[in-house]
């Protein structure tokens, strides 16, 4: 089975993605498939300061709860409130309507610590 891995995003080994242009963060297609039907999402509040690698919330599916980690350090500038009522968006559109929050990068250099699309694709092969 192959998974969608957009190459314009950066990835964590723990399956979160970040869009370097918008600071938008979510979980990967592979992650949503592993978790199964997602029923609950807990997110940080707008204005929260996150450190790179810090757990910012949980994604709960019918079979597991996973902590999710911030790809970079910075302040949370927006959260996707739609996923509270429609957590299935993470399954249906993990790189689109199922995004989680937007972060203002404190240090763009941190993006270098992340995996490229190609590197991430080979990790989940």
């Amino acid at each position, binding site marked *: 089975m192959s998974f969608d891995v957009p190459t314009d995003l950066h990835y964590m080994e723990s399956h979160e993605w970040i869009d370097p242009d918008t600071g938008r963060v979510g979980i990967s297609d592979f992650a949503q498939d592993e978790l199964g039907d997602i029923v*609950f999402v*807990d997110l940080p509040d707008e204005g929260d300061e996150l450190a790179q690698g810090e757990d910012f919330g949980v994604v*709960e599916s019918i079979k*597991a*709860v996973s902590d999710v980690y911030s790809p970079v350090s910075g302040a949370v500038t927006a959260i996707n409130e739609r996923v509270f009522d429609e957590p299935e968006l993470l399954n249906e559109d993990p790189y689109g309507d199922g995004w989680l929050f937007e972060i203002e990068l404190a240090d763009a250099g941190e993006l270098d610590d992340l995996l490229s699309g190609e590197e991430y694709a080979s990790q989940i092969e």
Partner: protein
Amino acid sequence: MTGGSPFVPHTEADRQAMLDAVGVSDVEELFDVPASVRFDGDLDVPARSEAAVRSEVATTLDRNASLTEFLGRGHYDHYVPSVVDRISARSEFLTSYTQYQPEVAQGFLQALFEYQSMLVELTGLPIANASMYDAATALGEAALLASRVRDADGSTVLVPEYVRDERVSVLENYGAGAGISVRRVPGTARTLSPDPLADAIDQEVAAVYAETPTARGRIEESLGGVGDLAHQHDALFVVGSDPIAMALLEAPGYQGADVVIGDASVLGLPTSYGMGLGIFATKEDYLRQVPGRLVGASTDDAGRRAYTLTLQTREQHIRRERATSNICTNQAWVALRTAMHVAHLGPDGLIEKARRMVRLASDLADRLDGIAGIEAPASDGHYFREFVAETDRDAQALAADLRDRGFAIHAIDDHEVQVAVTETTADATDDLVAAIREVTA
């Protein structure tokens, strides 16, 4: 160990076959128990026949003084009708250890769901779990919940001075690992009103705990103000109450309580000297922070209403070290009995029982107050099931003299006694009053 015992299923031949199969000569080889923790002596437990053991135990028990107990402070003797014993002793209830398998446990799960639903009505909060061990452990869990959900820093839990030391000790024990500290609010030995709380509360406070009725039996009248003050400081308001009292009093959830804890064993068990049934109810906001088991209603594949344990991702077997609680069991059978008792009483029956607890305490206090040298209740207010009386005579000596006359009451200190009365002791109050009159004369 030899074969042939009616209590041990394996014969010596069975054991030998198993040992041969795994290739060891002795069961001991399968275990590695350090010598330092082994007991090598004889246990010195004499073996007797069943009849001889029964006789000796009966003789020993007969030596107990059988006092008429007017004791309370958290444990109460209520009459549990025999229909509850009869139905709850059915083997499908009595012998089922747990309810993991909805396909074989619908009856039990439905009873637990109804127990939860009753607690939702009584507490005025939308979620009740399938029970904790007792009120004290439920309070510990409430403090842990508060420390998890609170935004601001600080994990202090404020408790009034009237809370029993045993309950506070369990709370401290639960909170220690999570960095929770417990502080008493000065000047609250009899009641907790907003003023002393306002002096004690600060931004470090994660939760404020209050009781109604209190450990002294007092029905608190300023819970709403106390809750408002807690909320102004971003602290959770935790209320300890009693399932019978809540049938009569305004539900704590309607007075701002974020969590209600308590002990429902008063409805499910006869006097049990410690065994409990912890109530835990909270708001929908904290659904995923609830400790312990939750039974939910769903539908089966044929569309019929069906019950199952739910939201188990909070629990240890899935969430491991990040579970909301290390308690993954409950007092299922006692909760079942409680649900049966409440269903048997019905709403009117439960409310009438609660009214009677107010009347009994009030009548007995009035009669004791008529005795020279006794002031009952010790402070004005409404009381439920029990009250504190002030005595001119040394309270310990008074309780000791009453014990000689066949009555147990609790001496709190040198000048206060606490007296609890329920329907099981209502008929003995004349004798108690007469005895107290004698020992105070």
